[in-house]
């Protein structure tokens, strides 16, 4: 695979990633958000595979496969399991209106481009537009986590943000060392498990969503 082709493919994958991120931001139903984040993880795995093929880096292939298995299959399956067990309605409640969220997303993308232009010296030509896309994904994931009052959507925002960080790492340095990547994914799994446990604990004792509790103040 020529570097040029790889750059174009990664560009295209970046567009898909941004589109899925917009869907997560605009999602009003939990199921849809879970499907979209799974699709996003598939695209991330694809990007890793493309870069691995272009640079003959076996580590990237391994990371791609692990990402596919864990973030595109295992974690969504986990989330579906939690959703099935909680009885609350599956609409996503947000602190700010979704249209405002989308507007902020637009601002984030502009900021990300500005930021990446000042980071320009470390970008590799092979990854094209990946750096601003990665930064915007990370920041938009954080936006989802901060602006939603549904626990599972906050988790989805976390996964999306981590996708963004991985994409950024790919953009600047062919991904992080394999062990670190595996460790990060492991952390994400464990974090997701603990969050799932907390959500289910709340469900069993209180009839509301855990992210909606706000008695602790001052």
């Amino acid at each position, binding site marked *: 695979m020529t570097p040029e082709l790889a750059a174009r493919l990664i560009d295209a994958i970046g567009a898909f990633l941004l589109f899925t991120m917009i869907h997560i931001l605009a999602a009003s139903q939990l199921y849809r958000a879970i499907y979209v984040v799974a699709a996003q993880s598939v695209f991330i795995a694809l990007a890793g595979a493309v870069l691995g093929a272009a640079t003959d880096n076996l580590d990237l292939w391994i990371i791609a496969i692990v990402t596919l298995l864990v973030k595109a299959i295992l974690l969504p399956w986990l989330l579906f399991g939690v959703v099935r067990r909680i009885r609350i309605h599956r609409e996503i409640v947000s602190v700010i209106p979704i249209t405002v969220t989308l507007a902020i997303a637009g601002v984030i993308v502009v900021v990300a481009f500005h930021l990446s232009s000042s980071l320009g010296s470390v970008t590799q030509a092979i990854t094209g537009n990946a750096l601003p896309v990665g930064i915007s994904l990370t920041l938009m994931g954080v936006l989802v986590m901060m602006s939603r009052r549904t626990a599972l959507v906050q988790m989805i925002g976390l996964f999306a943000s981590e996708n963004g960080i991985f994409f950024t790492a790919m953009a*600047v*340095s062919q991904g992080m060392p394999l062990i670190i990547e595996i460790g990060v994914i492991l952390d994400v799994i464990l974090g997701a498990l603990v969050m799932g446990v907390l959500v289910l604990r709340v469900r069993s004792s209180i009839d509301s969503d855990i992210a909606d509790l706000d008695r602790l103040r001052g």
Partner: protein
Amino acid sequence: MSSLLWILPLVPTSFGLLMLGVRDRRWLNALDLASNALVATLVVALAQHVMSAGPLRAAGVFAADAVTILFLALVAFLGLTTAIYTVGWMRHKVAAGEIPERRLPVYFALIQIFIATMLVTVVADNLGVLWIAMEGTTITSALLVGFARDRDGLEAAWKYIIVTTIGISFGLFGTVLIYAAAAHAQGGVPEGAMNFTTIVAIAPTLDPGIVRIGFIFALIGYGTKAGLAPVHMWLPDAHSQAPTPVSALLSGALIKCALFGIIRFHTIARGACGPAFAGDLLLLFGLVSVVVATPFILTQQDVKRLLGYHSVEHVGIVAFGLGIGGPLGTYAALLHVLNHGVTKALVFFVAGDAIGRCGSRDMRRIRGLLRVAPFAGTFLMLGAFSLAGTPPFSIFISELLVIQAGLAGGHTLAVALFLAMVVVIFAGLIHHAGKMAFGAPEPSVHAGEEPRSGLLAMSLLAAVMLALGLTVPVPLHDVLVRAAEVTLGM
């Protein structure tokens, strides 16, 4: 000897896994004590080696220099005293039926793994491993914070895990940027570009722009975990809702480990961008933390929340000291890490006792502690005076050094503001503590026997607190000086 670095976190991990199979409370306590004692011994051995023979390195993943030793000592000491305190505390909790016996193994195992992750954080040389361990501490401590399964505890646990995970994602982002800068400076070779020791060595060649942005993200990330304002909101909730031994570990040890991460990135940023950039940021956020925490301390009613906000303030003081920089400021900040950790644990233990005795966290309901539990009451007053920064206790010394360094560095306005806040907090804290210790106890509170283990733990902490207030012993002084040098990149 470098294999000690591997063995150190493995000890609590294996003890923790072992504990999962043990049912008897006394055996669990014994294992707890043994594990922490072993860790303490190993830390002492490690300390001796590092101070005499220089920094240790293992497999490109772990390393131990003077800064590591300082933090290891803190974690080990607090782990040990917490284990001692837990003996009596757990007996009380089980007798009162608040913690079912079948959940005990899980609790103890989680504590051990929590301590293990903290140890890994501090001995990590690889920035990625540092991050992974930091996230590991979040995961284990979130389960511990929500252990009581009551509504407030779960809310606190959720806020804790979400806010810190958001923050720490920024930290990962910053790590990636620094990694990229280092790999780039090495000519595109990523070997060792994630290791702190390597990065510091090539720090002057790093692109300052990238390091600046990376440092900002890392500061946001690890600062969230440390409880720096304005991302400190989770801290009062989590530290107040957690079980008392866990609160002590969180406030005393965990936020210090996050500060360790900040210190590492600070050293890198100093090397690449010069001392002004990172120092100014730390100074600013430290001061903001102190200022933000003050009104909440004054108006607080929940005793553990009060202590949580107080931790925010003291983390701010450490950042303030680091920001002032220079040998004196850094020395003061590092000393404060130790002092605050010890003192905060002591006061948390006392508070835990008082809450257990009076049945409520509300400070208006806790009265007359001196009459009901004389030893605990005494420790409360001692601890409160120490936290507020009174001589002859340790915090006074470190705060004084910070002020000295600040004045010497010319930050008079900042120091003046800092002093004002400290005075206000002093007044507030003594007021609260006095109301709790003196006066007539509520009729429902009975003068029960004070658990000896709890008193032992508190005495140990108080002794260290007093000792460090009177003088800094020579070995510790050497460690601090060396650690300050390492932090300043000299």
